Each structure stands twice: as C-alpha cells, then as structure tokens.
C-alpha cells in the first residue's frame, strides 16, 4: 500500500481541478453575454440569475436538512432491535 497515490487524488491534481472548475463557473456566467436567456417572470433573464439562485437554494436546502437532521436523526441501528 506504499504506492504513489492515484494521480487523481494528488494535491496537485486537485488544485488543477479546482482551477478548471472556477474557469467553468465563470464561463457559464459570462456565456450569458453572448447567449440570450429568456426572461421567465422578469427574473430569469437577469445576468447570473441561475448561478446565484442555484447556489443560494442549495445552501438553503443543506442548512434546512441539517436543521431537520438535528431533530430527526437517530443511530442507524434504531430500528434493528
């Protein structure tokens, strides 16, 4: 097991992946300069609407799940006995 870690999990690769991801994120927003996004309900056409809305709604869902989890989570052997 003392082999070199898989190239995909090396820190240098992960750094590159993050940079590529950042570039992709930026590109997806900047693409709106070139492509017309149909304005659903007025908000849909705003610059970067889907980026902001997607990000914030995911944050909200994770936080809500976390909150609900504090009430409803039990050990996974809860139903076993």
């Amino acid at each position: 097991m003392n082999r070199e870690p898989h190239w995909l999990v090396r820190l240098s690769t992960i750094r590159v992946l993050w940079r590529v991801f950042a570039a992709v994120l930026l590109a997806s927003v900047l693409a709106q300069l070139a492509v017309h996004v149909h304005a659903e309900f007025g908000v849909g056409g705003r610059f970067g609407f889907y980026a902001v809305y997607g990000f914030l709604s995911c944050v909200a869902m994770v936080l809500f799940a976390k909150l609900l989890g504090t009430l409803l989570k039990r050990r996974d052997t809860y139903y076993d006995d």
Partner: protein
Amino acid sequence: MIDAVPPGLVLLLGGAALPLVPVRLRPAWILGLPLITLWLSWSVPAGAPLHVQYLGWHLIPLRVDLLSRLFALVFSIMAFGGGLFALKQASVRELAAAYIYAGAAIGAVFAGDLMTLFVFWEIMAVASAAVIWSTGSRAAYGAGMRYLGVHLFGGVLLMVGILAYAKTTGSIAFDSLSAGGAGRWLILAGFLINAGAPPFSSWLPDAYPEASATGSVFLSAFTTKTAVYVLLRGFAGEHLLIYFGLFMVYYGIIYALLENDMRRILAYSIVNQVGFMVTAVGIGTPLALNGAAAHAFAHIIYKALLLMSAGAVLQQTGKRKCSDLGGLFRTMPVTMACGVIGALAISAFPLTSGFVTKSMINQAAADQHMLWPWLLLVAASAGVFLHAGIKFPWFVFFQKDSGLRPPEPPANMRYAMYVFAFLCVAIGVYPAPLYALLPFPVDFVPYTGGHVVSQLQLLFFAGLAFFAMLPLMARTLTVTLDVDWLYRRGGPYLYGMLRQRVERTGTVLSAAAQAAAHRTLSWLDRYHGPEGIFGRAWPTGRMVIWVALMLVAYLLFAYAGRY
C-alpha cells in the same frame, strides 16, 4: 387474433413459468420474454381490440393509445435491462417475481377499465413484495411486510373508490375521472399512495434498499411510474397534484441529503423525481403532460442505471453505507462511469435524457405563469444535482480511499449498464424519437442557447455549493425518522401502552366488580339469607304439624258427617 395478445400477460405468465424452464434455456427465456413483450407492445394496433362482459361489467383488458404504449415500451425495455443485469446473479424466485411484477405493470397501463386496472394493481403489490422478500434476510422480510401493508391499504382505498365511482357514474371505463364524487377522491388516494406521495412517502425508501442488488433495479421502475401513468390518465390538470408533487420533490431532496445508505439516497430521489412528474400532471397543459410522460420514460432508464451502478458496488463489496465506501473509481471505472452518466441524466445535464424531458416540465410551469411552482421547480433542479447527481458518485466512488479494491462486476451486469448508459445519452442527444411517442404533438425545442446556458449555470453553481459545504455533508451513521416511525415504533409503542392501560383498567375493573358482587351477595344474604328478614326459614316441622292437625280435623268432620 394474434393482434389482441395482451403484451403484459406474455411477460407475466412467462415469468411465472420461469422456475419450470430447464436451467440451460433460462438465459434465453429471461432475455427473450421482454423483447417479445416489447415487440407486442409496439405492434399491437391502437384502439381497444379486446372487450369482455363479465358479471355485468364491461371490461376492456387491452386499450392501446399513445400514452399506454409509451409506458408499455419503457416497461419492456426496463424488464430487459433488469433481466440482463440480474441474469446470473438473481435467484429464480426473484426473477420470476420481477417478471410477474413487470408484466402486471404492463397489464395495468393497457387496462381500459378500472376493474382490470385493480387486478393488475394488486398483482403488482404482491409480486413486488415477493421481489423484496427474495433476499431472505430478516430486514427484507420486515420491510416487505410493511411495504405490502401500505400497498394493500392503498388497494382497499382504490377498490372502495372504484365501487363508489361505478355506483355514481354507472361506468368503470378508465378515462379522465373528472366526476364521481367521493369515489374519485378515494381512487386518487389509492393512486397517490403508489406514487409515494405524502403522507405515505416513506414506504419507498424503507422497502427498496432492502431488496437484493438486482431486485431494487426492478423495483425502482414499475410501481411509482404506473402511478404516474394512472394520474396522467385520470387526473390530468387536477391542481391539488401540484402541491403533492412539490412536497415530494423537496421531501426527496432533504431526506436524501441526510441519508447514508447509497441505495436509500437513490430511493429518496425516486420520490423526488416522481414529484416532478406529479407536479406536471397537476399543471395539466399538453406540454406539462408530455413532460410528465417523457420524464417518466427517461427516469426509468437513468434511475435503473444508477441502481445498477449501486447494485454492482453492493454486489462487489457487500457494503451499502457511504461511510464505508469511497475511492472505488480506482478498480471499478466502468461502474463509476455508468453511475456518473446516470447521475448527469438525473440532474438534467445537457446532452442527457433528463435535460430534454425535465425542461418540458419547468417550461410548462413558466408558460402557465405559475411563479412559485416554477421557482420551486428550478431550485429543486439544482437540488437534484446536489442530493443525487453529485452526492451518490462522490461518496461511493471518490470521497476518501476506503481501502476497498473490488473488481468490476460480471459481464452481464456491465452490458446492462452499457445499454442503459447508451440510452441516457442517446435520448439526450437525439430526443426526436422519444418526442414522437408522446401523447400530444410536441412543439418544444430543448436545445436553445438560453436553456443550455441557464441549466449549466444552475448546475455548476449547485456543484460549487456542494463542495463549499462538504464539511456539512459528512456522512453519519444515522437513519432519519419519517412517517413510517408511526407504524414501526409509534404503533407498537401505542399498542404496548394501550395494552398496559387495558390490563391495568381490567385489574381495577375486575376488583371493583368483585367488590360489587360481594356487596350484592352479602346484601342478598342479609335480607334473603337463612337469617334474613325476607328469607327467614319457617321450620318445615311446624308446617307438618299444622297439616297433620288439619288432616285430623278434616277426618273428624268427615266421620262426624257420616254418622
């Protein structure tokens, strides 16, 4: 007459006969039956070629139109893929049950009347429970019993509803059920239980992950999608369904985010995806209904692919919890790639099947100027990527190095994944053939620059949110309580408490009864007993003397009278 062979019956009876087929011929039987069914479903002429009068009912066992054919086709494809995936691994019992289940589902979507529908509906419930039970584990037995209980309850609602509906309207034809009073609502309740709608959503994530690695692939497809079909047929445009659907969409996301079992994550996401379809049925425009039907078609394939990928992992590692898995991309790249394709499809990435079908639903909400449903559907589309699209592949194949180095699954499992991964991409790249099968003419272009850019923004930033909040997503060894707590813990607890109460009340009552009986007896004794004032016994001896004296007197008078 060959035109009128009900395609579902071929699969159903063929599946039932599977244990009798010589072992050598079984692979051909398993792969051949769904293909024959597929061909029959495709070639059976439109209309209602079969009519039967039975006990005064007008039954239509086979009614063929675009909607029923679409579902029969995808069910046949599903049975083929599931059969190929399970070919060498599943027990004969499981495969026979799975084919009966699939055949009954096809029978249900071809049913032209409510009685025929009900019969196939119940066969599905029992056969799918048998699929769950075929692992033979105790957990599966319990889960299967709970599953069957919920579905039989739904069946009772459906049956009562059908009878009430038939009494009110005088017909059992299964078309749009817009009249029918209470019967209509009961039928809707029966349908919604099978769709996984609240408050009975939890039967699905409770039961499906307890089936075998191959069994859950079959289970993911038929019950909920038959429910989507019957809702499309009977309740299109029922606005109540928008609320049910949106609840299911978010229920699936939130519970999947909290879940640790990889197949239970996917089970919650079935509820989530069916929620999109139910919402679309509620919106009810031709675009929305096309979207629901198309999304059901695409969903069956990518969800089966995801569960095949998870099933392959389970089969090769014996592990099902995300906290035990991770890093499997090293030795299972094919399984990983197929899982990722399924994950991209469920997330509706451009060039996958989910994109060309789900965007119809979101567009339908926008076209109807339904602001809140639209906003909720768009946020949920981001949430799908979060809870299934990234979470499943990330925790199973990447995340950390779990040290597991399992090999790829056997060839038949890989081929099944190839076929379904190909379909996910093919439908996404070239949706025209699917669009041609939809119930209404399609006037929708998925690939506009605006659609693609907005969807990519949404998904990439959902991905950013996932990785930004990764510490919050850490897997824990937990389950999350749900409505099924009521019958798994609450019911038994209530029963125990009630029994205790009843027993205690019984003790008190019986003591009180004893005391009362004792009091009554002593009262009786006091007044009517041997010494009681009413019951004082006059000595019989004294009576005898009086009788004797009277006799003597009588005799004396009698003698005196003679002389």
